[in-house]
């Protein structure tokens, strides 16, 4: 078990030390969210109606931002070869890397959501629902992105391709996330049904993501 802890701590530290980590993602999230009111105009009713969607799309883009380096940095410096040879299950290694990456960059996005919600005129109940859906749904985005990062690991400009690959696959997460976040009340069926689907997608990602990413990484040495 010791190796899992050291891998998690190292990945968490590196994610924070390289390129500002959490701050860069949050600032990007802020930039995406603040651009919308300028584009849509000062119509608070319209903004608060589409606010949840804006926040979700902002979080999706901010999540994809740092993911291209998830395995690429390791491949470039030779770490990936050693991770594959280490004798530890690569699927578990991928899962721990995703967890550390999410803790360093995804969690700050969730924490920033209540503040950014004010920019798009959400009321208290909606702020709660958007934050809750992102807390549950954002890990699915990271896990899905990890598959894209594994597939594009050997490409020099993998970041753009990663986004092109991952965004279509993220549509179900977005649909269930936004429909839960825009439900009338937190206790209504309109919230609970899509919210449970969102939970299911994250659990699904927890299994499929590491399996697929590890398979892609194993053949990347060629």
């Amino acid at each position, binding site marked *: 078990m*010791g*190796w899992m802890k*050291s*891998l998690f701590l*190292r990945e968490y*530290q*590196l994610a924070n*030390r*390289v390129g500002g980590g959490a701050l860069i993602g949050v600032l990007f999230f802020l930039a995406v969210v603040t651009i919308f009111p300028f584009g849509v105009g000062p119509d608070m009713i319209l903004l608060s109606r589409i606010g949840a969607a804006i926040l979700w799309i902002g979080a999706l883009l901010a999540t994809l931002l740092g993911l291209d380096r998830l395995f690429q940095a390791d491949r*470039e*410096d*030779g*770490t990936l*070869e*050693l991770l*594959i*040879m*280490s*004798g*530890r299950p690569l699927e578990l290694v991928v899962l721990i890397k995703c967890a550390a990456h999410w803790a360093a960059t995804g969690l700050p996005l969730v924490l920033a959501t209540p503040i950014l919600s004010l920019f798009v005129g959400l009321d208290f109940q909606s702020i709660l629902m958007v934050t809750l859906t992102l807390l549950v749904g954002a890990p699915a985005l990271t896990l899905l992105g990890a598959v894209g990062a594994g597939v594009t690991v*050997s*490409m*020099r400009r993998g970041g753009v391709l990663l986004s092109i690959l991952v965004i279509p696959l993220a549509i179900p997460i977005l649909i269930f996330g936004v429909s839960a976040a825009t439900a009338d009340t937190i206790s209504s069926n309109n919230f609970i049904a899509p919210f449970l689907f969102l939970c299911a997608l994250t659990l699904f990602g927890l299994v499929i993501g590491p399996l697929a990413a590890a398979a892609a990484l194993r*053949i990347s*040495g*060629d």
Partner: protein
Amino acid sequence: MVISGAMFNLKLICQGVACDRGGRRVLNHVDFEVGSSEALIVQGPNGVGKSSLLRVIAGLVAKAHGSIELHGGVDERSVAEQSHYFGHLDALKPLQSVLENLSFWRSFFEPAPFGDGKERENMTELEALETLGIAHTASLPAGYLSAGQRRRLSVARLLVVPRPIWLLDEPTSALDKASEEVLLGLIANHIHSGGLVVAATHLPLNLPNTKFLNLSPITTESEHMFADRDLDDYFEQGED
């Protein structure tokens, strides 16, 4: 020095190994055996597939044919999982200190037994750094190290985690004369303590109990092969 067969408890056997990279064959029918307390030096001109052979053994490149087995090792683990690979890349994180880099590999890498039932003492991080003469850099970020110091830190990984097979790709590159001596001494130690070494080099390495494997270029029906090669070079650029 002659070592009788009875002393071998580990035996790495490669039979008819072939490997394709970028659509062309770089290795064909490679056979060798190397046992405990032996070194195999893989020789040949540049581009003949020395590195590819090591990467195939390390499980990083899929082989097209043949078998690679370790007799006397742990059956449920692959050859790669009982090997150390020391290649051109140092696998160091420049933002972490020398000690943090090494400690990580020590706790993360799973050690493998030498097949003789004896426990190997693995060095602590500081002992390994001292042996390699870079103990004074322990708290520096690895990014500040010189090329030679980075290589030495990378070697330290082999010392802190015991694994019987060492796969060394041009182990002495970027090292000065003194460090080269130290490294050769460490490799000799590993061989004497029952480890086995497969080293690819174009320079003579002075190691005990050495066998040689000479690789020669494969003659291919050229023409379209050249196109493949250009494409390869294009993709390889990003890796340097």
